[in-house]
């Protein structure tokens, strides 16, 4: 390995990257935009309880109870059908939807225990569910002077996310960090494909430069750009406050993943337009796990076949839930394995293309 050659190639690539007006502007603006976007997002969860209510026949006592609740910050919406209530819950309009059966009054009078159904959306945390149930019982108790003999049945609409209540902007953190990393793939892929398209790679390969020097220098450039931006972003938004070393290792492996993917795009693309076309396609696929964090329940187990899942999941769980090395080691090993396989595949592809 000739490190003098690698240093020369790295300086050249960095100079060329920042002389490409499109990528240099997008790199800087992207970072600034993502930071602004992060900070304008709400930093806390809305603690008011928005409740949907459906009852063919409303008991005066319960109606009065809700009226009292409204004065204490409870938002109650009465729906005309049970389906509309469910849609409101799934759409996030209500933290819970309450269904009171038509025969509630008669059942109570005859000493039976009517069943009240509470609908929750899949990403409602456990404590919020409990809060909703307690609030409803409390309101009714205060209104009628005793605990109603009812049975409360809870039903989750969509897969239950078991209490992942994270402020929106913290959910956004892994998404934006991953976007920054993945976007660098386009710039690097363009650098590589330009080198092949314009024949400069041939000029390099008739000097003492070896193919491995080229790969290493491009790899260093790609990882530096992607890792650097992600670290700057995470540092500014406080993403390094928990387990900083673990986050840095994860971002590094993610940057290596992005670099490997850049090589892959370069081996597929022939010019700027084809690089952009392939790049955007792969960008969208890699971004899906990050959207899964933003919108829990929107994705299922298949997401684990997308390589960026292990990057997103680790950043999310470490920075938002304080997961540690023991929790995340398997993700890191998988990410490392993907990096190795990806690099091997694309090196073979690029060798053939350069030859």
């Amino acid at each position, binding site marked *: 390995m000739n490190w003098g050659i690698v240093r020369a190639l790295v300086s050249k690539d960095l100079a060329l990257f920042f002389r490409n007006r499109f990528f240099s502007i997008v790199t800087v603006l992207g970072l600034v935009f993502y930071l602004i976007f992060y900070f304008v997002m709400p930093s806390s969860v809305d603690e008011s309880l928005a409740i949907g209510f459906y009852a063919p026949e409303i008991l005066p006592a319960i109606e009065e109870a809700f009226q009292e609740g409204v004065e204490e910050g409870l938002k109650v919406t009465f729906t005309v059908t049970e389906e509309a209530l469910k849609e409101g819950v799934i759409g996030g309009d209500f933290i819970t939807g309450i269904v009171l059966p038509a025969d509630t009054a008669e059942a109570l009078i005859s000493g039976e225990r009517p069943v009240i159904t509470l609908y929750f959306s899949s990403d409602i945390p456990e404590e919020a569910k409990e809060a909703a149930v307690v609030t409803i019982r409390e309101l009714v108790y205060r209104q009628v002077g005793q605990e109603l003999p009812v049975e409360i049945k809870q039903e989750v609409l969509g897969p239950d996310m078991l209490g992942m209540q994270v402020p929106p902007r913290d959910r956004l953190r892994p998404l934006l960090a991953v976007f920054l990393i993945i976007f660098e793939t386009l710039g690097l892929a363009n650098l590589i494909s330009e080198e092949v398209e314009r024949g400069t790679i041939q*000029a390099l390969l*008739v000097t003492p430069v070896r193919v491995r020097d080229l790969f290493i220098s491009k790899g260093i450039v790609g990882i530096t750009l992607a890792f650097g931006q992600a670290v700057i972003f995470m540092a500014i938004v406080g993403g390094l406050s928990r387990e900083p070393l673990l986050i840095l290792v994860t971002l590094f492996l993610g940057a290596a993943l992005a670099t490997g993917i850049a090589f892959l795009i370069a081996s597929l693309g022939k010019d700027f337009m084809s690089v952009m076309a392939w790049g955007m396609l792969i960008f969208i696929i890699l971004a899906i796990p990050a959207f899964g964090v933003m919108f829990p329940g929107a994705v299922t187990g298949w997401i684990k076949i997308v390589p960026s899942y292990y990057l997103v999941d680790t950043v999310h769980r470490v920075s938002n839930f304080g997961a540690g090395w023991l929790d995340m080691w398997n993700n890191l090993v998988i990410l490392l394995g993907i990096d190795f396989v990806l690099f091997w595949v694309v090196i073979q592809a690029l060798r053939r293309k350069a030859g």
Partner: protein
Amino acid sequence: MAGDAIIAEELSYWYGDLIAVNGISFKVGEGKILGFLGPNGAGKTTTVKMLTGQLKPKGGKATLLGMDVAENVEAVQGDIGVCFETTNLYEKMSAVENLKLFARLFGITDFNPDILLGKVDLAGRGKDRVETYSKGMKQRLMVARSMINSPRVLFLDEPTAGLDPASSEAIRNIILEERERGATVFLTTHDMLEADKLSDQVAFMNQGQIVALDTPLNLKQKYGKRALKAQVSTASGELVDREIILDTPETPQAVQQLFSQENVVTIHSEEATLEDIFINITGRGLIE
């Protein structure tokens, strides 16, 4: 006595079923210029790629400066310079940056780009980005880049193609200077006059094979014809062309008759060009 800088022995390469280079053999002495001529698709570029270590021969052996190219690619490439036909410079970098980059790749620490830029007449434009250069300037910069490491063997692929006469002449002078310095030059060109003027030896390549290899003079003597071309004035004042083939038993008598019996207005000798000879040997032109 100088040895051979380039030795090709039964060199072959094929792409699938297509035989690009078919067992060619030749030698180029140190400090000599070989003009490598042939139409597009003749196998010239593949040959150059094998000689410069870009392709590993599928048959035969290439030796440069005493080293087997396939076995010593790194060492060989440290001693050669290659100027490609297609411009492959870093266009968003200046000429100085381009040259300094390649100097670093060759491990040259005390490189002064101004000397080389002056040599190719780009002294005043060294700091401008290459994307602002004309084709001729880019070509001259490519030649300069190929000379960064003072190569012992210089490969030039169509170095004057599409250039204006002044730029072409500048590059030809550089080639001659390189030979004066002791470099061996492997010159691929379509320009027959250029090859004739510069080359110590000329190789004609056709369909993957070398069909002729000799000095330009010997090739002309062997395959070409020399003639006297004259214009004579008739009794009515009309100008008529006359041609006398030289080097035949009838030539002296024909010359004598021309001057004694005709009113000669103009006369000049004409030699066969390398292109004539190539057509004579292969039955096809260089540019098709």
